[in-house]
């Protein structure tokens, strides 16, 4: 007597695979976005002066960018901070003299991070920069020197 053999296992297996893929796709979309919502920022206040004092090793990258066009004899990091900021979170530090410098990431996208930088009493600026782009703000004078704020985002 002839009987039906086997079952539609290949079709059922394919349906299960399709369902798994459909469930995995939203998770794949969500994970990368969550990982990009924080920015690590190295913020430093450096005193640039004509007085002897040498170049602070911590300011080596800053010195490399400034030495061609700006004349000085010493470069000393006065204050620095490594910030880990979420979008719209404000971080900063206090400069000599009591004024503050503040940074806030506003947006992260393919073009970089939109940063808001506020040097109290001097400059307010919004810049879109890529990761590891060094932003140098020559701000107010301090004695015989000048305060230079450097902002290095990494994301």
């Amino acid at each position, binding site marked *: 007597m002839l009987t039906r053999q086997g079952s539609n296992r290949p079709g059922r297996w394919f349906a299960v695979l399709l369902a798994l893929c459909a469930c995995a796709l939203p998770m794949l979309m969500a994970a990368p976005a969550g990982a990009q919502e924080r920015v690590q920022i190295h913020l430093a206040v450096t005193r640039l002066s004509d007085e002897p004092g040498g170049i602070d090793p911590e300011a080596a990258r800053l010195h490399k960018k400034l030495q061609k066009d700006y004349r000085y004899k010493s470069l000393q990091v006065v204050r620095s901070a490594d910030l880990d900021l979420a979008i719209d979170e404000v971080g900063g530090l206090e400069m000599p003299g009591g004024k503050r410098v503040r940074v806030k990431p506003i947006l992260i996208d393919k073009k970089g991070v939109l940063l808001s930088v506020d040097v109290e009493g001097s400059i307010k600026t919004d810049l879109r920069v890529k*990761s590891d782009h060094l932003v140098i703000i020559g701000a107010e004078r301090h004695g015989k020197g000048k305060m230079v704020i450097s902002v290095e985002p990494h*994301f």
Partner: protein
Amino acid sequence: MTDANEATLHAYYDGELGWWAQRRFEAHLRRSPELRAELQAIRSLGSALRMAEESSLAHGPEPDLWPAIAAELPNTRTLGAMESDSAAGSWAGWFTWRPLATGALAVAMAAAFFALQPGSPAQPAGAGGPMTATVRYLDTGGRSVVLDGGEDFTIIWLTPGDAV
């Protein structure tokens, strides 16, 4: 006689038992007249079948009945591709369009995954390509400023006369 004994009996007759199992079964045979009778019946049946086969060959090959049977069977193609249960039909379909569809789906998902990334998968977002900055807003309180920079840095420099 239990099913296990019947299965062992047939295995013994077909010579499929291992040495130790064969010795154990033969000891059982010696103790069980019923089992010996069953074994004899199987042997008689085997002999009868062999005699019948030899007799049929002596009278020429038997007619092929399959064409007549196949003509009476329903056409499996009319049942639809999903209900085709013949081994050749279902597995032939499995080895053609389903793997292609699965592969195409996997490729589409991978493409969607990388397309949705904010940056290159091998690089962090915002990296790659020439590093430049865009100044979207600048307020110096009316003081003049020099803008300078390069691929990986930007300088916003208040000019002299900016004492606060």
